[in-house]
C-alpha cells in the first residue's frame, strides 16, 4: 500500500480517497462557478492540465457529495457544505440531491477501429452508452447505500420520454440493466483487443447517444423513496478522443437539447493544428467556461485566496508541522541581514555611478537625492537607486533627441517614478545584485500561473525545506526570502529541464522556450527599463498567425511543426495566451506569455504585461536552433 509523505505531492483529483478529497477540496471554486452551469445544456470546461477540471467534476460525484454531507458538522467543511446547500446540490435532511455521473474519455474510445467497413460512430455511441449506464448504476448504489436503504431493492421508473429509447432496455431490473451494459462493454472491448476480423453483425452500434436521454428520463426509487432527483452527466478528458469523435460528441449532444446539464471537460487546446480557432459556437445549448479565467485577469487575487485555501487544507492533513496558514512559514520580507554583502556591493557600484554623473548639472538634484539613499542600508533604498538610474537613462535618451538642458527638480523624480518602475527595480536588483525576488505567499501564488498542480509543486518543495529545517533543529521554523527563492528556482529549473522528458515535442518546445526566455531577458534588463517591469511574452500578429496557419498540413513543414509546438506548450501551460486587441498603430494578435515558473527560471518578473512582437520565421528559428544571445550581459539602454 502506498502512503503519501509530502501532502503537497500527488494530484487530488485521482489519487485520494473521498474523505481526504473533501478535506482537501477548496470550496472557492464552487463560488466561482457561473450561475447557469446546472441548467440543461452542454457546458464545456477548459483549462490547462492541473487547472482543476477533474477535481471540480469529482466534487459532484455521489461519493464525494455524500462525504461533504457527512462532514457538514465539521467546522472546516462547513463552507463547502453551505455552498452546495445554497445551490441545492445537497439537502440538509435528505443528503445529496444530485446524481453526478463522471466518465473519462481516456479509456479506449480513441482506439476504436476505424474504416469504411465499420460503423465507427455507432460503435463509439454504444461504448459510451454502456459506460454511462454502468457508471450511473454504481452512483445510484453508492447513494442508496445508507443504513435505512440497505437491503431495499432499487426500482427503476421512467417518464414518457423513455418511450423513444431504442437501444437501452427499459423493461428490466437494475441488475439486468447492469448485465446488459456490462455485456455490451465487453463485446466492444473484445472488438478492440481482437486480432481476428469480427463479423460485422456482431459489432454493436447505436444510432444516437441514447444514454443521455435515458439518464434524464429514469427515476430511481428505494424503499418507496425517490433517490436524488437531479442529474448531471460529466465527461472528462475530451481531448483524448479522436478529432472526429470529439466533433460528433459535442455536435450530437448539443442537438439532443438535453434537459439535464452535461459537463464536458478538456484541455485548453484540444487539437494541435486548431490553435486559437477552437470553440466557435456559444449559444443557449452550448456554453463554454475557461477555468483559468475564473481566477485570471482582474481576479488574480481570487486565485491567491483559492490557492492559500488549498495550501492550508493540505497542511492540515499532515502532522509534522503545526497546521494553519501556509504563509506563516514564509517570510514575506527580505531580512537585511541575509543580503548585507549584496547591499554593500550595490552601494559601492552606485557610488561609482553617482561619481561619474556628478558633472551633469541637469541631474544635480536627482543625484543629491540618490546620495541620501546610499546612506540607508535597506533593500528599498537599493530599489530607489535603480529607479533613479533608470529615470536618468530614460531622460538622457530623450534629451539627445531634444537637446534639453534645464536642470530637473527633485519633485519631478517622484512624478516620473511609477509602480511599474518600482517593480522593474525589484527584478533588476535581483538580476544585478542577487537580491531575492521570488518569495512570499503572494508571489508564490502568482508563480503558479493560476494552476493548482504548479502551486502544489512549489509548495511541496517549500514543505521539504521546512522539514529539513525541523530535522536540523533550526531555532525558527520559517523559510527566509533567500531560502524560498532557492527552493522555487530549483523547482523552476526542474520544470524547464523536464520538458523534453514529459512532452511529445519536448525538445523543440524547450529550445523555443529557452529562446523566448533569453529574448525576454534581453528586452527586460536594459538600464532604462523601457518595458517596466519587464518583457515576459512574445506576440504574433494576426498576419503572422494567418501565415503560420496557411501551411499545408504536412509534418515536414516547419511552420506546421511550430503551430504544433505552440499548441502543445499552451495545452501544457508552458505558454499562456492572451488576446491582444488592435489599435490605430498595430493590428491585433495573440501574446504568448511564458509560464510564471519559467519566468523564475529566466529571472524575469512575475507580472504579465510586457511583450514584444516577433515573426513566425524568428520563432521557427528559435524552435529549431535554440537561443542565440544577441547582446552581452551588461545593462544597456534601449
Amino acid at each position, binding site marked *: 500500500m502506498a502512503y503519501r*509523505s509530502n501532502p503537497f505531492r500527488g494530484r487530488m483529483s485521482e489519487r485520494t480517497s473521498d474523505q481526504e478529497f473533501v478535506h482537501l477540496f477548496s470550496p472557492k471554486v464552487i463560488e466561482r462557478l457561473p450561475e447557469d452551469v446546472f441548467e440543461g445544456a452542454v457546458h464545456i470546461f477548459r483549462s490547462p492540465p492541473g487547472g482543476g477540471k477533474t477535481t471540480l467534476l469529482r466534487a459532484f460525484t455521489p461519493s464525494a457529495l455524500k462525504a461533504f454531507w457527512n462532514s457538514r458538522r465539521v467546522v472546516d467543511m462547513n463552507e463547502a457544505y453551505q455552498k452546495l446547500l445554497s445551490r441545492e446540490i445537497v439537502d440538509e435532511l435528505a443528503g445529496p440531491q444530485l446524481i453526478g455521473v463522471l466518465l473519462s474519455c481516456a479509456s479506449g474510445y480513441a482506439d476504436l477501429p476505424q474504416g469504411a*467497413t465499420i460503423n465507427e460512430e455507432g460503435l463509439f455511441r454504444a461504448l459510451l452508452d454502456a459506460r454511462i449506464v454502468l457508471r450511473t448504476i454504481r452512483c445510484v448504489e453508492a447513494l442508496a447505500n445508507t443504513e435505512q436503504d440497505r437491503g431495499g431493492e432499487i426500482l427503476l421508473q421512467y417518464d414518457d420520454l423513455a418511450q423513444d429509447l431504442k437501444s437501452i432496455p427499459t423493461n428490466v431490473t437494475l441488475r439486468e440493466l447492469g448485465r446488459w451494459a456490462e455485456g455490451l462493454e*465487453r463485446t466492444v472491448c473484445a472488438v478492440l483487443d481482437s*486480432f481476428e476480423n469480427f463479423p460485422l453483425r456482431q459489432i454493436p452500434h447505436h444510432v444516437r447517444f441514447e444514454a443521455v436521454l435515458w439518464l434524464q428520463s429514469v427515476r430511481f426509487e428505494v424503499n418507496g423513496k425517490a433517490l436524488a432527483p437531479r442529474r448531471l452527466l460529466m465527461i472528462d478528458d475530451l481531448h483524448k478522443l479522436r478529432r472526429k469523435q470529439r466533433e460528433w460528441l459535442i455536435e450530437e449532444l448539443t442537438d439532443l437539447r438535453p434537459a439535464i446539464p452535461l459537463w464536458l471537460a478538456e484541455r485548453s487546446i484540444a487539437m494541435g493544428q486548431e490553435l486559437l480557432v477552437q470553440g466557435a459556437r456559444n449559444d443557449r445549448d452550448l456554453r463554454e467556461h475557461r477555468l483559468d479565467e475564473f481566477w485570471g485577469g482582474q481576479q488574480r487575487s481570487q486565485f491567491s485566496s483559492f490557492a492559500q485555501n488549498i495550501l492550508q487544507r493540505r497542511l492540515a492533513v499532515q502532522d509534522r508541522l503545526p497546521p494553519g496558514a501556509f504563509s506563516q512559514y514564509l517570510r514575506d520580507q527580505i531580512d537585511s541581514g541575509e543580503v548585507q554583502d549584496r547591499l554593500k556591493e550595490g552601494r559601492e557600484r552606485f557610488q561609482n555611478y553617482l561619481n561619474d554623473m556628478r558633472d551633469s548639472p541637469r541631474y544635480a538634484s536627482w543625484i543629491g537625492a540618490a546620495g541620501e539613499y546610499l546612506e540607508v542600508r535597506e533593500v528599498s533604498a537599493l530599489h530607489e537607486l535603480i529607479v533613479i538610474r533608470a529615470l536618468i537613462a530614460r531622460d538622457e535618451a530623450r534629451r539627445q533627441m531634444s537637446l534639453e538642458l534645464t536642470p530637473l527638480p527633485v519633485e519631478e523624480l517622484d512624478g516620473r517614478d511609477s509602480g511599474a518602475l518600482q517593480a522593474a527595480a525589484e527584478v533588476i536588483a535581483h538580476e544585478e545584485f542577487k537580491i531575492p525576488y521570488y518569495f512570499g505567499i503572494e508571489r508564490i501564488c502568482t508563480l503558479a500561473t493560476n494552476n493548482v498542480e504548479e502551486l502544489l509543486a512549489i509548495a511541496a518543495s517549500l514543505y521539504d525545506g521546512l522539514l529539513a529545517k525541523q530535522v536540523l533543529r533550526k531555532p525558527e521554523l520559517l523559510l527566509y526570502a533567500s531560502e524560498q527563492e532557492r527552493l522555487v528556482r530549483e523547482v523552476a529549473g526542474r520544470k524547464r529541464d523536464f520538458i523534453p*522528458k514529459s512532452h511529445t515535442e*519536448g*525538445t523543440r518546445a524547450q529550445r523555443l522556450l529557452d529562446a523566448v526566455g533569453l529574448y525576454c531577458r534581453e528586452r527586460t534588463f536594459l538600464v532604462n527599463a523601457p518595458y517596466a517591469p519587464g518583457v515576459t511574452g512574445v506576440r504574433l500578429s494576426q498576419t503572422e498567425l494567418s501565415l503560420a496557419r496557411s501551411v499545408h498540413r504536412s509534418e515536414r513543414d516547419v511552420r506546421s511543426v511550430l503551430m504544433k509546438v505552440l499548441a502543445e506548450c499552451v495545452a501544457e501551460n508552458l505558454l499562456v495566451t492572451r488576446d491582444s486587441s488592435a489599435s490605430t498603430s498595430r493590428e491585433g494578435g495573440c501574446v504568448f506569455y511564458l509560464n510564471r515558473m519559467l519566468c523564475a527560471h529566466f529571472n524575469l518578473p512575475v507580472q504579465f504585461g510586457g511583450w514584444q512582437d516577433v515573426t513566425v520565421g524568428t520563432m521557427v528559428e528559435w524552435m529549431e536552433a535554440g537561443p542565440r544571445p544577441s547582446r552581452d550581459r551588461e545593462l544597456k539602454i534601449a
Partner: protein
Amino acid sequence: MKALWQHYVYRRGDEVQEMWDRMFSQRQSRGEACRVLYIAGRGFDTRAVVVLQRFIQCLRESRCDVEKAELLLVGIEGYELSRELLDQTDRNAVALQDEFRSIGETKFVTSKDDVDGDIEEVSANSALHRCTKNVLDAVGDHTDIVLDVSSLPRILYLSILLALLQKLVPDKDEGKALLAKGVNFQVVVAEDPKLDSLIRSEDPRSDLVLIPGYSGALRIESVRHWPLVWFPILGENRIGQLQKIMESDVIPPLAEICPVLPHPSRDPRRADQLLVEYRTPLFDASQTPVSNVLYAHESHPFEVYRQLSGAMKRYLMSMRIMGGCHLVVTPLASKLITLGAGLACFEMKPSAHEDYSVAIPYAEPARYVATSRELAAADPELAVLVLTGESYG
C-alpha cells in the same frame, strides 16, 4: 498453477551458435526441411545486422534444407530521429536485405499499411494493434519463427511476442502446450546494457499505449473497482515515462506498487542507483514500502519471469477474497528483463476471452537519441530464448 516455462531453453554467448548448429543439423539429419520466418525491426540499431549474420551463417553451415525463408522487416513509424540515425536506419535495412537474399525474400510491414481515412487520427494503440496484426498475418506454415528484438522498440516487440505466443499457444492448460505443433519460436537479443543506457529516449507521448490483448483490465468498467498491483520494472533514464503513467488514471491511489530492480547485475550498485533515480515519484510522492521491491537477474529473462509470475500468483491468491485483482506491468528496463516480464504476463493472462486481469501500459517515447559512433562501438552478446517447439515435446 504449473509454470509454463518451468523448464526452458536459454542460451547466451557462444552457446547460441552451438544450439543453432545442433538444432539445424538434427533437422538436416532427419531429412526435414525448414520454413523460416525471421522478424526484425527496420531500425537504427546495428545489432540486428550482427544477429542476422550469425543466424544465417549457422543455417548455411548446418546444410539444412531451407524450403522457404522470409525476412519480415517491421517498419518503425512515428519516431523522431536525427538525420544520422535515419541514414543508419536505411543502411541497416539494406544490409539486412542483402544478408538475407542468399536464403529468401524480404517483406515489409508498418503500422501505416491499409489505413482507411486520416492517418493522423490513428491512435498509438490502434497503430500498434495494426502493426502487430500485420505481423501475425505473415505467419503461415513456418516451422521456425525467429523474433529478433535487437532493433525493435520495447512496446512493439512485446506486442509481437505476446501476440505470437497467443497464436502458437492458444490453450495454456493443454498438456504439452509449448510444443505448439512443433513450431520453434525463438526470441533473439543482442544485449549490450552499455549501449542500451546510451540510447536516450525522450519526449514521451502524452497518450499511454496498451499492449493489444492486455488492455481490458484497465478498460472494463465493471472490474474497475478491483484492487490493482503495479509492477514498474525500472531501468535508467525512464523517469519521464514512469511519471506519465503515474499521472494518468490507470494507477489508482491505493495501488500496491512493487518496483522491480535489476539485481544481480554487472554493476552491483545498479539497483541502488535506480532507487535514487526514482526516489521522488515512487518513494516521496507515494511512500512505497521498501519491502515491496522485487529483484530480478539482469541477464536472465527466465529468472525475471519466475520472480514476477511468482509474485503475481501470490497477489492473485491473496486478493481472491476481494473478488480478484488487476496486475499491471510497466517494463522500463533492458530487453532481457522486459522479455521475462512479457512471459510472466502471458502466463498470468487468463485463457478465457472475457476474463481480464493483466495489463501492460507504457508511455512510448517520440524521440530516440544516439550517435552512429556509439552504435558502431556496440559489443553485443547474443542471447536466445526458445519459447515453443520441439524442445518442449
